[in-house]
């Protein structure tokens, strides 16, 4: 233990004790956060980055705590990211994937909440296909709850990791222009990002065919474009979104090839952005659907950095919600 503590303090230079207490119990939505809380979480995450880069990837501030990852929707990267984050902080992490029929989904949610609550976890990380489901669950348990994605509503840790990635590459966030392109209507990533970037004074643009733009979007983003080249003009950051294959079956979008022609990110379209623009994607990517593989794997891409920042952000959020010594 002594060795760990020494190493920790040497490597990090500081522990989470240096930050003022984080006042929120849950992380359900970016909309619940003040600007200073967002910046606080980004700063905390910045301090967590070295933990994962050192040989012994351990910073056991959550030792003795129990974290449950409750995923009603399949996810590999988000669930894995939360699991690694919890384990590097020394928490006992349990993964629960709940396969639920559409008929009994909600019943499973409330019942599962009561069951898990009785096991006295300290934090539950939840993903659910229905907007508002995570908040509903948070009302039924005594511990902290982290939203890992609820329907088309929010995915707050994704927006935080995107912001951290941008800050690392651009040195700042305020004053930048960020374009988000793709299935805006059905994306929780967009909503969390527009809220977070808006709170940090970023000019936000959304780019999509009209069929994939939700009502009222012009009040959520600074600008709305249906032409990708116009939308990408002089932007600092390009965020691409995954297009679900089932939307390109003629019901919403005629075909993948037409979508790619007009809304897929290739070198020519990217050339309209600033020369030093970075390209992001929350994953999982559909190469050749929304993005040219050469761009996804090219010099402008910071997609793997996003994954790395994801672990740091989730560690920071867990650490902020569950400070050492606080009883849940």
């Amino acid at each position, binding site marked *: 233990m002594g060795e760990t503590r020494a190493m920790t303090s040497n490597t990090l230079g500081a522990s989470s004790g240096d930050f003022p207490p984080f006042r929120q119990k849950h992380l359900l939505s970016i909309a619940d956060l003040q600007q200073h809380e967002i910046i606080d979480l980004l700063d905390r995450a910045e301090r967590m980055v070295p933990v994962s880069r050192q040989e012994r990837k351990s910073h056991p501030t959550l030792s003795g705590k129990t974290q449950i990852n409750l995923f009603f929707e399949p996810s590999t990267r988000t669930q894995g990211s939360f699991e690694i984050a919890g384990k590097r902080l020394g928490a006992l992490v349990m993964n629960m994937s709940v396969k639920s029929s559409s008929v009994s989904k*909600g019943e499973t949610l409330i019942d599962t909440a009561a069951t898990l609550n009785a096991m006295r976890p300290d934090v539950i990380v939840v993903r659910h296909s*229905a907007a*508002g489901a995570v908040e*509903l669950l948070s009302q039924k348990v005594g511990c902290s709850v982290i939203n890992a994605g609820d329907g088309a509503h929010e995915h707050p840790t994704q927006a935080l990791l995107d912001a951290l990635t941008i800050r690392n590459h651009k040195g700042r966030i305020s004053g930048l222009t960020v374009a988000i392109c793709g299935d805006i209507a059905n994306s929780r990533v967009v909503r969390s990002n527009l809220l977070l970037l808006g709170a940090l004074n970023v000019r936000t643009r959304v780019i999509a065919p009209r069929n994939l733009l939700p009502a*009222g979007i012009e009040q*959520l983003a600074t600008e709305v474009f249906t032409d990708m080249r116009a939308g990408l003009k002089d932007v600092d950051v390009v965020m691409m979104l995954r297009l679900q294959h089932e939307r390109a079956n003629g019901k919403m979008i005629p075909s993948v090839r037409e979508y790619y022609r007009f809304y897929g990110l290739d070198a020519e379209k990217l050339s309209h952005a600033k020369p030093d623009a970075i390209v992001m994607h929350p994953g999982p990517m559909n190469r050749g659907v929304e993005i040219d593989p050469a761009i996804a794997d090219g010099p402008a891409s910071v997609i793997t950095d996003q994954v790395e920042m994801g672990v740091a952000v989730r560690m920071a959020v867990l650490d902020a919600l569950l400070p050492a010594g606080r009883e849940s």
Partner: protein
Amino acid sequence: MSSVLLIKNARIVDPASGMDSPGAVLVRDGVIAEAAYGQTIATPEGAQVIDARGLILSPGLIDMRVFTGEPGKEYRETLQSAGEAAAAGGVTSFVMMPDTAPVVDDGALVDFLIRRAKATSKVNVLPAAAMTKGLAGQEITEFGLLQEAGAVCLTDGRHSVQSSSMLRTIMSYAANYGLTVVHHLSDDGLTSDGVMNEGLFATVLGLKGIPREAETIPLARDLQLAALTGVRYHAAQISCAASVELLAAAKKRNRNVTAGVSINNLALNENDIGRYRTFFKLSTPLRSEDDRQAVIEGLRSGAIDTIHSDHDPQDTEVKRQPFAEASDGAIGLETLLAAALRLVHSGQVELLAVLRAMTSRPAEILGLAAGRIAPGAPADLILFDLDYPWQVNEKAIRSRSRNTSFEGARLAGKVMYTLVGGQIVYTHSEENQGRD
């Protein structure tokens, strides 16, 4: 032996005659025998007397859209429990939607319901019959036999017939029997998996929206088919400004079309959903504040004829769910009058107009003798205190389900006596302590 009841010192408000005046009403054997305005009536020997000083006497409310759980889902609501709720809310008659298990699409079921209601319900239950078998929108039901059995109108309840040719068939056959077709408006393709009003708020919540056109497109079609067939047509419930315009235009040409509005769309708007409050998830969704103001104006102008509760009992199992997965519907029998009186207290609609929409207009549309204070009419009457303040308390709800969208709401106006067929079926004074 005849029973005689005298209600004196009342402020009589009778929308059918347009009267709003002090007076007295004499009830004999369940029927209104005499209504005296500006004077009193000598107390007949042996008469029961209600001194209605400070109270308004009006016809009992006729609620054109009530869902029950009987038969099939008695744990949500029975005719008996709905009757208790109705009596406490001043509703002396309600039209029962056919969306039950089994569906009310057969004369025998109408007959059963009427007899069952007589045996168990304090208020008049008026069964509406399904216009398509199983509410499936595919085959028409036996309109003539259903009417003979006692069905007061035809409707597919919360279902909307999608095929224009099927609707034409329904309307022309209903016209044959003089039956009113009451139709819920939903273009199911546009409604799709929407769960609330389409717009910024739905987008922020990450919920699928229902565009107003899902209502206005079927309404425009229905109004044209109503003109084509000559049927008596009633748009079940409208929610937006564009529908008010369509109705106002159609009514200039066709006197046989009418429309209703749910109290929810008059009293609430989409912002009440807040953070996924499922008691505000309704099958005609709450719209914007502009739309709410437009339907209030529609009520004032006469484009909208009736106000109903859209009473729809749902249990916690189906309501305590993520918003998109929760059932639609809210109860409303007990709060209908007080919520409607908000429009009076705010000065937006005259008392006579608000009461007309819940008494004489529904009676005219359905061809009922009730809904008016006139000799010979059934003594379905309410006495209410226009200003009585109270707060909606979930624990005091008489309905078997508690999904009220007015939980905690402060309301002014309360029924003190409810009479059905001359019998007092509810008095406020004897049970107000601890309940309200």
